[in-house]
């Protein structure tokens, strides 16, 4: 039983950066923009968060810095794709390349440094409930923030007028524009949010999980986040589930090895990817086609024609 608690705690830690990055990208894609630069934004957040935390000894400032770094990167993307109408796919990839390079350049001064990891919060009484206590209620603040964000995004998209407008922009930007909604403004705002959360997701790696900086430390998590958005059929709750599924399988395959099970480690490493595809196919199989469609205007440039 104890091992199960520890495994679940590990899963949550592994999944949290993915939750942040994917929930942000989900909002961006619901507004009709495909931003493949998630990896670049995450890694910039990671170096910004690490550098500022190290310099100011304040996690709070570090996280703010990370969010800012991701947001600024997203703004660059937003300007290119929404104002200059550049191709979104290529621009996103360029952002990833640029972000990886820039973070490595800035990070030269920080390699070999380490910070103290952000510690868990122990909530009196609640954390002591057997099993549920340690699994759910003994984590660092960012874990709670990630879950709250998912709930917030769900509420925003489905229960607020602003969310409705955002979704409308994503489904039919011409019609939305005709009604008078500021398509570009909405998308800028969505990208701002997406960049900030991706930055925080990256900072989770460099401040909480492994408080150090090395080049490319996101190791492709931005791409996984993109996949999770698709997996979730653009629904926040499902994005949370997807992130935990992926993080979960990754952690569990390590445990399986430690327990001495006789399966080749590299086949086990394939599991998170295969399981994700399988689960997505199974879940999507029995729903009507309409529910699965991406926001109709995803990836298409908008230009006001009137």
């Amino acid at each position, binding site marked *: 039983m104890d091992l199960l608690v520890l495994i679940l705690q590990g899963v949550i830690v592994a999944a949290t950066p993915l939750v942040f990055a994917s929930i942000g990208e989900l909002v961006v894609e619901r507004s009709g923009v495909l931003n*493949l630069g998630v990896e670049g934004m995450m890694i910039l957040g990671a170096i910004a968060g690490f550098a500022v935390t190290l310099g100011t000894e304040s996690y709070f400032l570090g996280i703010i810095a990370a969010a800012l770094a991701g947001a600024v990167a997203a703004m*660059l993307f937003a300007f*290119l794709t929404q104002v*200059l*109408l*550049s*191709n979104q*796919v*290529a*621009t996103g*990839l*360029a*952002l990833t*390349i*640029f*972000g*990886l*390079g*820039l*973070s*490595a*350049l800035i990070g*030269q001064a920080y390699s070999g440094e380490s910070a103290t990891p952000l510690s868990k919060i122990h909530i009196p009484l609640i954390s002591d409930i057997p099993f549920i206590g340690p699994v759910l209620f003994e984590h660092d603040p960012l874990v709670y923030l990630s879950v709250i964000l998912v709930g917030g995004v769900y509420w925003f998209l489905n229960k607020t007028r602003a969310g409705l407008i955002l979704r409308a922009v994503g489904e039919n930007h011409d019609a939305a524009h005709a*009604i*008078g*909604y500021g398509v570009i403004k909405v998308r800028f705002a969505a990208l701002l949010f997406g960049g900030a959360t991706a930055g925080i997701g990256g900072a989770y790696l460099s401040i909480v999980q492994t408080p150090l900086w090395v*080049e490319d430390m996101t190791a*492709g998590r931005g*791409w996984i986040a*993109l*996949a999770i958005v*698709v*997996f979730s059929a653009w629904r926040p709750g499902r994005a949370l589930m997807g992130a935990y599924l992926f993080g979960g399988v990754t952690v569990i395959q390590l445990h399986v090895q430690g327990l001495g099970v006789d399966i*080749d480690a*590299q*086949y086990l*490493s*394939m599991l998170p*990817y*295969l399981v*994700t*595809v399988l689960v*997505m*196919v199974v879940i*999507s*199989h029995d729903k009507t*086609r309409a529910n*699965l469609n*991406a926001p109709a205007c995803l*990836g298409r440039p908008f*230009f*006001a024609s009137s």
Partner: protein
Amino acid sequence: MIRLEPRKEVSKHLLYLTPVMAVAVTIALGLVMFAALGKNPFQAIYIIFYEPLTDLFTISEMIVKATPLILIGIGLSFGFRAGVWNIGAEGQFTFGALTGGAVALALYQVEGFWVLPLMCLAGILGGMAWAAIPAFLRTKFNANEILVTLMLTYVAVLLLSVLVHGPLKDPEGLNFPESRLFHGAATMPILIAETRAHIGFIVALLAVAVAWVVLSRHVFGYQVKVMGQSPKAAAYGGFVEKRVVWVSLMISGGLAGLAGTFEAAGPVGQLVPALPVGYGFTAIIVAFLGRLNPIGILLAGFVMALTYIGGEGAQISMNLPSAVTGVFQGMFLFTLLGIDVLARYRIRMVRRQPAEKGS
């Protein structure tokens, strides 16, 4: 207020002018960056943009690097025009290298001019098979190909590693995870003596030519264009979306797989876990930089190859960290993509209209 209006026809002379302008802007930005890093900015720009063009060896290496980018880029362009987002060309490249390489290793004691074409066929079929999975899942289960192709990329890379550590390992290789070196009949013939530039480049040029013909003359090219612009119109057009999905994925998978076999049989000469270096992703950029047009892709492939080789040269000659290459490439891509707007849209100054509020 500045307003962008789409041009009815892409301005031809601007089409050629904008990349030049973008290069100029990148050079300007690059000069600033290198100066800020404390290095001679002019030397850096020279080494990155110009020096590779002055020497046969570096030109040949540009050909080596551009060949897979062009092949994969051409393949991807079909799908992208139709809204079929194959993000997993890297995986199809890897799987194709695996199947083509496996044939080479199986036949390692066999000579004969037919060995290499057989390998290439195996590579094409391998890439297609890997792309058939997302095609099937999309047409049967409406599963989004972005996720499937991406996830399968990781699986393919791991599969390569597993097999090279195991069944495909060189028996005389002291258990190093590398396959045997491919024998003569399984190696790509060299185009330029004393270099690594191989005939795969000719195949890439052929692909460009064929693609150009198909896209401008053949009905499939038309279908692809229409589907991309308006899926609903495509449905009215009387042809099935499924066919376009399958054919585009087969084309991009096959070409990626072929590129993988060429890479294994040419510059590398064996199967190693590090074979996939990201050509599948870079080719996406190449496809879009080339405006999804075959000739454009040909040129864009070379431009990307230039920045890689120039960037390496800068590391060697000026002791710049490898990160600078990525930053420089990113800047270059940003300016190219941003300035490209001029070719596609006209800039108008419009008087501000009073805002109409929707009810």
